[in-house]
């Protein structure tokens, strides 16, 4: 008797499923495939008796294992008592195989261990019985009857030998002492002692161990068939019993016989048995530690050879064996053999070589059979780690893959679905551990196909759903859009699909599998997330926050289509994924998958696919909602918002911010019309920055935001709701429903009202796709900084394009993001703070409108120079009063003039002219005193005077108004806001009078004595006293218009009587108007002033270099011209009408001769001739009196200094003809001496005319010794007739 509690190993494997009925033919070929024993576990209460439990157990067992089956060999039922009173459990002895475990019993573990050992010994006993049956000639015939022999129930076989069942059964109790079931303790005992006592079934066999196979053979002499199969069976049973030495012997025997036969399958099976023995022996013999070092050949190469042989044998195995076909079984055996082969390699590889770890993996697969401990850590799938395993074990991954790949082939279709599933699963997990992800994906697709097929077919068997049984030879995905799958078809056809089982457990795993496959092929099915709407309220806020940094990078800007993966495959897999999700059915997942693929694969999807996916998703979402699914889809289509801008507020509503001080400081020195150009600096860097980027809007008024949407897809994208996401002040806006046309940009106007004052920040838009949840898209302002950052990012991306940093699976974006490129990271960082579109909301503002005007059709017709008045009536249509009104005007002449001034190409003179015209001759003017507050609903009429200015074609009246001194607000502000209405006026100015040829000529200096009488008349008409101090102003006026005009030029001169020249000019004719002007003299101080500028412009150095004298002359010309225009006014009057206006002479040029004519001489010289001895007082009569020849006369010269300084003067007198007269003294350079200002000096020269005739006397007076000798001499000339 062995030690009752000796230690050792008992390998029990618990199967989760009973083998399918289709495997029953394997019963003899592979006994290890079947459960050898069944343990029932029951809990008994008072209500059900032990008998009923027993019968229940038996019937359940019969249900699983039909009675015709050989297995299970042993059965046992453990009944656990629920409570203490064990009154009805006393009948246990009558029921074989039922053990009652009382509840009060302690140390149950030990007890159950004992019970298990009991069960094992029962199994071993049964082995003997089976072998006994097989050894009989009849049994052997059964065994050799067909390829997959089956044994009828043992009861039908005759008892072959004298040893009966009863004796073996009777011997059982002696083995009731059993070892503890241990899995973790390794015993290094040299011999496996426990295996020994497990062989205690048929006692005689123990004695024949190893030495008596011939005898054994002899015992079956007389049978017709070979004993090969029998020996193989013996080997199997010995192996199962743990007696490896025996098994080895019997297997070897069997192989000898098989070599000559054609029994391939059995041959291969025996080889497999040998292989198993080899592994078990290696495990038991010191775990292979000693022979791993000294092997020239790898220790497992022998095993591999055998397995390869077995594989080829299975493949060669005849399919037809006496009339029956065994495709399924053979394919299964073949697959199992290859799996055995590859998992051996895999175990060795993953355990870093032939060692204890490998054996543990093979002999004691835990719950994670295909995830060996060496690969269970996170970074296991890295190439380096995998290669290290190869290095240690000497087995390359590709060799494992090659072996494993042999399973795959068309024969897989022979397999029964469940087997196929399990084989495929095993394959996939081995591939996964090898790091062969694509192969894993391939297999997983088949796994999915298997599962889905089972699911769909299972439903069909229920008879509930009718699937159109269109079996396609291909993948089904080829049909693309129209693949009808699963129950969704039934739904579409109008019938109401009812699922019998509403259980959706497992769906999630199927979907996870799908996602995994897709991810390996480069599709991220989770690109669009499913969100549980029940916790959306809390979760939504958080997601917004987290999104801020990353998602703000403008995807559309940075997006560059970078292909990765295999587009055709991706499309195919997507179709399949959608079909799978539809067939489950999991509608949110359908939507998620189709939308994710639309988002990711938009570039490679054909239009048809895009349409299909989109419509599928919409349909699925609707269905999901109808069924009350709480999950929903987040927004998916990339970034739909391109830009948001505030639509320009209508001008009449635009508030303009002004500081309060504007009101108090009324008029700055500068006319506002020049303000545009009055910046004292030519270059003002601040000018550009003063542009406000914050719009000012009024409270409670509708704001329009223009949102640009994009749709890159080929279908019309529907947005269920689109609304502005505003923060800051309360903003009232209605979400709208938008359909963005396919492949285009679309503009949408969203309006809303700001309800409070403050800063309104428009962060972006909240977008919701139909059936999805809403998402906020932030749209920061494109500041320069931002632009630069994006440009940098773009260029760095562009730099990466076309280069392959990562290849294969690593090129997928989610893999790549794990290994970011380190450099440039500082520049690429998204900014933390963003600026958004901001509006300043100001308090409500009054609103004014133009009620009426006196202008018909907004058009004004004027003659050039005409002045008229127009009236504008304004009405306050708001509930707020208006207490500030200001008018500003604009006309078409202003801008060109301002532009010319800005350009600065004008000469000083022209600049003055332009400025003068701008300031002093505006088209419109108004009287500020007319501005009065307007109460709500009241009107105010303002009159505006208009001037017909040549070249003016249009004008605008701007009315700025405000409620500046508010009383309705609590806090007072330093700012107020004005609004402006503009009233455009068309202006037509008819130029009808043209002035040209303005001239100034000196008065004729001599009197015609013959017509002396006229002199007086002229004096009378022209109202002048003396020729030398007057000049004549003349101008030609032409009437180019169709009606006559009365033109008048008036002289207004201080110190001279008013005078005018009036004429009526008929259409088309020209008249010259002449007006005598008194010559004028401007002081040197006046004329030396530079030409003024009317604006405060920065001094500009004149471009043309003028000398001092030229400059002086220019200034004189300017100032005399100004003086001329001051005293000569032209005006016109419509002949026979009432319209009047002025004539401007400013177009006329003034020349130097004209200047000379106008300017008064510096001195005045008067000449008189009178007989000697006469008094001055009679001088006036002098010329009228005839002079006689040879009469002594006195030429009196009277010189008056008219200039403002004292001058030394000299006088020269010319007498012509000089030879006909005599005179006294000298006539040339007569010194007059220095004359002070206004002093007159007289001198007399006696002369005598010698003949009759006309004599001319001329006097020139010029200053002496002055620098400016070019001063024109004052001259006078008189003509005298001498008659005897």
């Amino acid at each position: 008797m062995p030690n009752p509690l000796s230690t050792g190993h008992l390998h029990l494997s618990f199967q989760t499923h009973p083998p399918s009925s289709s495997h029953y033919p394997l019963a003899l070929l592979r006994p290890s495939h079947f459960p050898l024993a069944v343990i029932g576990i029951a809990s008994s209460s008072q209500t059900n008796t032990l008998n009923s439990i027993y019968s229940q157990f038996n019937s359940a067992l019969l249900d699983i294992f039909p009675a015709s089956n050989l297995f299970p060999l042993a059965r046992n039922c453990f009944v656990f008592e629920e409570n203490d009173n064990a009154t009805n459990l006393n009948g246990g002895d009558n029921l074989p195989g039922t053990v009652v475990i009382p509840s009060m019993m302690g140390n149950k573990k030990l007890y159950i261990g004992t019970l298990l050992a009991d069960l094992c010994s029962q199994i071993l006993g049964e082995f003997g019985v089976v072998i006994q049956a097989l050894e009989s000639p009849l049994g052997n015939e059964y065994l050799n009857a067909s390829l997959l022999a089956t044994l009828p129930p043992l009861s039908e076989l005759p008892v072959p030998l004298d040893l009966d069942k009863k004796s073996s059964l009777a011997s059982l109790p002696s083995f009731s002492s059993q070892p503890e079931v241990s899995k973790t303790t390794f015993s290094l005992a040299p011999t496996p002692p426990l295996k020994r006592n497990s062989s205690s079934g048929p006692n005689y066999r123990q004695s024949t161990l190893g030495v008596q196979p011939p005898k054994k053979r002899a015992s079956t002499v007389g049978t017709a068939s070979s004993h090969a199969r029998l020996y193989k069976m013996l080997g199997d049973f010995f192996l199962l019993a743990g007696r490896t030495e025996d098994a080895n012997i019997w297997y070897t025997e069997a192989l000898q016989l098989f070599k000559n036969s054609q029994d391939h399958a059995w041959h291969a099976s025996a080889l497999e048995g040998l292989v198993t023995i080899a592994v078990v022996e290696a495990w038991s013999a010191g775990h292979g530690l000693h022979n791993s070092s000294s092997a020239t050949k790898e220790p497992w190469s022998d095993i591999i050879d055998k397995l390869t042989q077995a594989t080829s044998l299975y493949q060669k195995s005849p399919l037809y064996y006496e009339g029956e076909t065994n495709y399924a079984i053979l394919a299964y055996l073949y697959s199992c053999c290859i799996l055995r082969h590859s998992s051996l390699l895999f175990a060795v590889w993953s355990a870093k070589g032939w060692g204890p770890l490998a054996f543990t993996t093979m002999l004691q697969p835990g719950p994670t059979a295909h995830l060996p401990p060496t690969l269970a850590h996170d970074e296991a799938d890295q190439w380096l780690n995998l290669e290290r395993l190869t290095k240690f074990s000497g087995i390359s991954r590709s060799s494992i893959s090659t072996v494993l790949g042999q399973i795959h082939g068309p024969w897989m279709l022979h397999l029964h679905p469940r087997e196929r599933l399990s084989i495929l699963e095993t394959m996939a997990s081995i591939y996964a551990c090898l790091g062969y992800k694509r192969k894993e994906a391939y297999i997983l697709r088949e796994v999915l196909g298997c599962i889905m097929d089972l699911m769909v077919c299972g439903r069909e068997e229920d008879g509930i759903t009718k699937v159109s049984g269109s079996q396609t030879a291909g993948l089904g995905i080829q049909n693309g859009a129209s693949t009808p799958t699963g129950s969704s078809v039934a739904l579409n056809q109008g019938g109401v699909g009812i699922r019998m089982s509403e259980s959706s457990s497992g769906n999630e795993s199927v979907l996870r599998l799908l996602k995994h496959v897709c991810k390996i092929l480069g599709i991220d099915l989770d690109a669009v997330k499913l969100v549980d709407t029940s916790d959306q309220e809390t979760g939504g806020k958080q997601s917004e926050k987290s999104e801020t940094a990353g998602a703000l990078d403008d995807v559309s800007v940075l997006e560059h289509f970078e292909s990765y993966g295999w587009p055709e495959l991706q499309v195919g897999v997507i179709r399949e994924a959608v079909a799978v999700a539809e067939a489950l059915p999991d509608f949110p997942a359908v939507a998620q998958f189709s939308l994710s693929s639309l988002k990711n694969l938009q570039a490679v999807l054909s239009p048809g696919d895009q349409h299909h996916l989109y419509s599928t998703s919409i349909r699925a979402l609707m269905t999901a909602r109808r069924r009350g699914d709480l999950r929903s889809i987040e927004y998916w289509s990339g970034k739909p918002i391109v830009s948001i801008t505030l639509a320009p507020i209508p001008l009449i509503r635009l508030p303009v911010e002004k500081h309060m001080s504007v009101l108090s400081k009324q008029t700055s020195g500068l006319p506002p019309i020049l303000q545009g150009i009055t910046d004292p600096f030519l270059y003002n860097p601040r000018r550009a920055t003063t542009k406000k980027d914050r719009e000012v809007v009024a409270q409670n008024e509708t704001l329009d935001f223009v949102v640009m949407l994009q749709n890159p897809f080929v279908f019309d994208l529907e947005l269920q709701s689109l609304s502005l996401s505003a923060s800051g002040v309360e903003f009232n806006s209605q979400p709208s429903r938008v359909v963005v046309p396919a492949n285009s940009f679309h503009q949408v106007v969203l309006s809303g009202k700001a309800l409070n004052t403050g800063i309104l920040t428009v962060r972006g838009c909240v977008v919701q796709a139909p059936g999805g949840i809403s998402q906020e898209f932030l749209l920061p302002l494109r500041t320069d900084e931002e632009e630069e950052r994006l440009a940098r990012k773009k260029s760095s991306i562009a730099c990466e394009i076309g280069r392959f940093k990562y290849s294969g699976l690593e090129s997928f974006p989610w893999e790549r993001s794990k290994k970011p490129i380190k450099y440039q990271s500082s520049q690429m960082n998204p900014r933390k703070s963003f600026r958004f579109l901001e509006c300043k909301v100001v308090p409500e503002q009054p609103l004014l409108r133009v009620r009426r005007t006196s202008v018909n059709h907004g058009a004004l017709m004027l003659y050039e120079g005409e002045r008229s008045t127009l009236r504008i009536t304004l009405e306050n249509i708001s509930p707020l009063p208006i207490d500030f009104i200001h008018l500003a005007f604009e006309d078409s002449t202003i801008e060109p003039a301002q532009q010319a001034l800005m350009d600065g190409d004008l000469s000083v003179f022209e600049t003055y002219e332009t400025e003068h015209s701008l300031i002093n001759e505006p088209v419109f003017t108004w009287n500020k005193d007319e501005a009065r507050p307007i109460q709500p609903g009241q009107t105010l009429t303002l009159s505006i005077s208009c001037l017909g200015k040549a070249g003016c074609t249009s004008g605008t009246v701007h009315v700025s108004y405000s409620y500046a001194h508010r009383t309705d607000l609590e806090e007072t502000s330093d700012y107020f806001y004005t609004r402006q209405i503009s009233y455009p006026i068309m202006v037509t100015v008819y130029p009808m009078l043209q002035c040209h040829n303005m001239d100034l000529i000196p008065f004729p200096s001599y009197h015609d004595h013959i017509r002396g009488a006229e002199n007086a008349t002229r004096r009378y008409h022209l109202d002048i006293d003396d020729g030398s101090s007057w000049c004549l102003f003349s101008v030609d006026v032409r009437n180019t218009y169709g009606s006559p005009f009365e033109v008048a030029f008036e002289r207004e001169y201080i110190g001279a009587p008013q005078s005018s020249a009036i004429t009526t000019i008929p259409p088309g004719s020209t008249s010259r108007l002449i007006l005598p002007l008194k010559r004028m003299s401007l002081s040197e101080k006046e004329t030396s002033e530079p030409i003024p500028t009317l604006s405060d412009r920065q001094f500009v150095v004149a471009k043309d270099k003028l000398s001092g004298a030229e400059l002086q002359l220019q200034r004189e010309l300017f100032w005399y011209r100004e003086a001329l225009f001051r005293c000569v006014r032209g005006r016109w009057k419509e002949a026979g009408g009432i319209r009047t206006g002025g004539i401007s002479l400013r177009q006329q040029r003034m020349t130097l001769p004209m200047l000379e004519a106008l300017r008064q001489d510096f001195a005045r010289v008067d000449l008189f001739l009178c007989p000697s001895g006469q008094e001055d007082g009679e001088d006036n009569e002098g010329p009228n009196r005839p002079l006689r020849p040879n009469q002594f006369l006195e030429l009196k010269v009277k010189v008056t200094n008219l200039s403002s300084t004292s001058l030394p003067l000299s006088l020269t007198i010319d007498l012509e003809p000089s030879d006909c007269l005599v005179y006294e003294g000298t006539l040339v350079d007569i010194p007059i001496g220095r004359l002070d200002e206004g002093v007159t000096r007289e001198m007399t020269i006696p002369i005598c005319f010698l003949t009759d005739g006309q004599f001319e006397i001329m006097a020139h007076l010029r200053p002496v010794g002055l620098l400016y000798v070019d001063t024109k001499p004052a001259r006078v000339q008189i003509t005298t007739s001498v008659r005897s």
Partner: protein
Amino acid sequence: MSHHLFILSPSDTPVYSLTHHSTKPVATAPSPLAANLPTWSTSAFAGTLTALSGASGATQHTSSGPVRIGGGQDRHVIQMIANASLDVIEDIMRKENAMYLRSVDKFNEWTVSAFVTPGNVKFILLHEGKNDDGIRAFFMEVWEAFVKTQLNPFYSGQGVIRSSVFDGRVRTSAKKHL
């Protein structure tokens, strides 16, 4: 006997693909297990399974003898196999210096040979029979044509090769060697 050539960019995107049918008969005999496959399911997913396991090609093979029309093989499956073989190719090309990787993988009835250019562009050829020298020569010629195509400054290096010259050359050398 047909051949399928795929030229894959480093990001596994096909830039060129060719299906070539040569007149040579298929050398290997199919396994007896692959015969007489059942048509056992009615759902569409079974079609996926049938195709992926290579059965659709095999059934046709047995029914219509050696004369096979290209459509008999599911193009998608061919692509799946080519894609799956990348695992082995990537594994082996890291360990071996050779550009030509002979028969790196076997799947269903297909043998996969590959050629990896220095720029990590992979030529993948799915073939059935053994034709080592022919395939090597074929790959070298394709490589030459490919390099010439890449010299084109207007070719982005990542896009699909649409050059008819390239196509013609590849077809010619396929005819010659395969």
